[in-house]
């Protein structure tokens, strides 16, 4: 298990959480995120993401855990942000 860093933002059109992928597209899937072993390593990606301010809002670098299963957030906030309020949708029969 390794702590790595990725760039995330919210999409301008609908506000969804997105992650910057290696091919410089924004993906809704956390596992698609391009990661760097340290925060400084994400500086160019962050600058690039900031330049895409018409497509995404307020990009920032966040830390995640990298394991064989893929990338996983380290805080409750980022877990929920990555998953969407899925338990609520499932529990209360809301559309996802």
């Amino acid at each position, binding site marked *: 298990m390794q702590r790595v860093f990725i760039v995330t933002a*919210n999409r*301008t*059109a*609908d*506000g*969804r*959480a997105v992650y910057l992928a290696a091919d410089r597209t924004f*993906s*809704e*899937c*956390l*596992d*698609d995120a391009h990661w760097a072993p340290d925060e400084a390593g994400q500086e160019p990606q962050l600058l690039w993401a900031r330049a895409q*301010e*018409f497509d995404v*809002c*307020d990009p920032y670098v966040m830390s995640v855990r990298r394991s064989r299963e893929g990338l*996983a957030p*380290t*805080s*409750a*906030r980022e*877990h*929920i*942000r*990555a*998953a*969407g*309020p*899925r*338990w*609520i949708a499932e*529990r*209360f029969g*809301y*559309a*996802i």
Partner: protein
Amino acid sequence: MYRYDDMDLRAVTERAAQFGEQVRRRLAGELTEAEFKPLRLQNGLYMQLHAYMLRVAIPYGLLSAAQLRKLAHISRKYDRGYGHFTTRQNIQFNWPDLEDVPRILEELAEVEMHAIQSSGNCIRNTTSDPFAGVAKDELEDPRPYCELIRQWSTFHPEFAFLPRKFKIAVTGAKHDRAAIAVHDIGLALVTNDAGEVGFEVRVGGGQGRTPILAEVLCEFLPKADLLSYCEAILRVYNRLGRRDNKYKARIKILVQETGRAEFARLVDEEWALIRDSGLRLTPADIDRFKAHFEAPSYLELASSDTAVSAALLGKDRSFSRWAMANVTEHRVPGYSIVALSLKAPDRPPGDVTHQQMDSVADLADEFSFGRLVVTHRQNLVFSDVESRRLPELFGRLEGIGLGTPNFGKVTDLIACPGLDYCNLASARSLNIAEAITARFADAEEVYDIGDVSLNISGCINACGHHHVGNIGILGIDKEGVEHYQIMLGGNHTEDASFGEILGRALEAHEVVAAIDEVLGTFVALRTEGESFIDTYRRVGAKPFKEAVYGGAGKQRGPREDREDRGHQEGPGRPGLVPVAAGRREPCAAE
């Protein structure tokens, strides 16, 4: 209720068109997020954790059936089929796409609604007593004054960029159902020694990270001076309120730092300059506003006593429980005030589906002169129901899942959206709300516990009013893990108080057991007919602390092995979904 005139209509329609152009420019890449953000906030549009959120203003909580139908339509067409009523008597839509928001605003304008000043550092929606106009203990209907304040404060050019947001609440009743002590300005209609009706003005109340009860600034303000006095307060605040520190920017901090007497002097000084300006209200002005809130054409009916007693004593236990908890005496004989609980076990607190909204609108037409009220405790109220029709209404409400007999009870809990939606949250609140609701599923037990308010906030901002819950739960983040602080002894009514922290913060899975212990302790210690808050005030925190954490110094945490009160354990526990379980899978599916 107040109906828009041509000027109102033009203002909201033009605002929708203006925002449409701003959205177009944002989506076309002509505006950055930094440029767009203040514009969207002025139209109630937030960026939350997963999506935009649109907060629509419901002035003092009053809605017509036609407006509710429009909200149902908006949730169906532009959102995910539900809306969330908030503690500020507003409604929030959690999933609008940016390009749809101008169209939503146009649709709202069609029914005399908008999202203006529902966010940002301005004067927000004026809130009031949900029983306004019909409460038995009411001196005078506060809604004409709420409407006056609404019109004065909407687009007020001086107060568009205050140091921080500003909230005003008004009550006309003895029993404070509007929580005026925790508002920036709290107004209560009172009588002076000469028998005239005016306002007691409180200022500087609030919750958040620095909870402060409002102080009385003026014991009796003549009605004529309502707007000029409020304007004087706002001017002093606008000039002297701190803009250097967001956490010290609310008027409560200014009042504390200045001192009540000096603050009052500053307000009086300012007031002297404007008291006799165009802001002075004539009796004719007031009558014009009162005319919008004239009582509906009530039938001449026999007293409600027989109908209500029959309900209470009847064989139908569920109906009598509902009548006992959710029905309140009306000032007009033969009528009742009915609370529609939005705290059913199958729904997050305050949420309503589009089908429910449509059905409630139909029921409002049939049973309550086509109107309803949103309460600050996230329920709905039908103000004018013929008592003889209570059984029929109850049956219809049960049929749409809104007949839960828990108004004012432990499961009638307030919960803010918390970390499931909110960008500022530290922890979830809806999972805790759901778990507590599941634990207290037995209506008999809920009834036996009696009146108690349980309020949950997902962070220190306190939108869930945890400080003034008899039981308050505050979500905090401890190194990325959700924890919860329990507070006891808060109260939002005329003898308002803030809750005291009971002990160390608990993990999510410990919270239900803690609440169980707290209420179990209450039941064991109460005297005949004593409510939770009265027992707490009588015995203090100690027995509750011991019940939850064990003897002094043990800090063992709540017992989780209680089978006797029906509380479930293990990963299957309702509501307490581990955060990781929500992992998006497969990614591409969305």
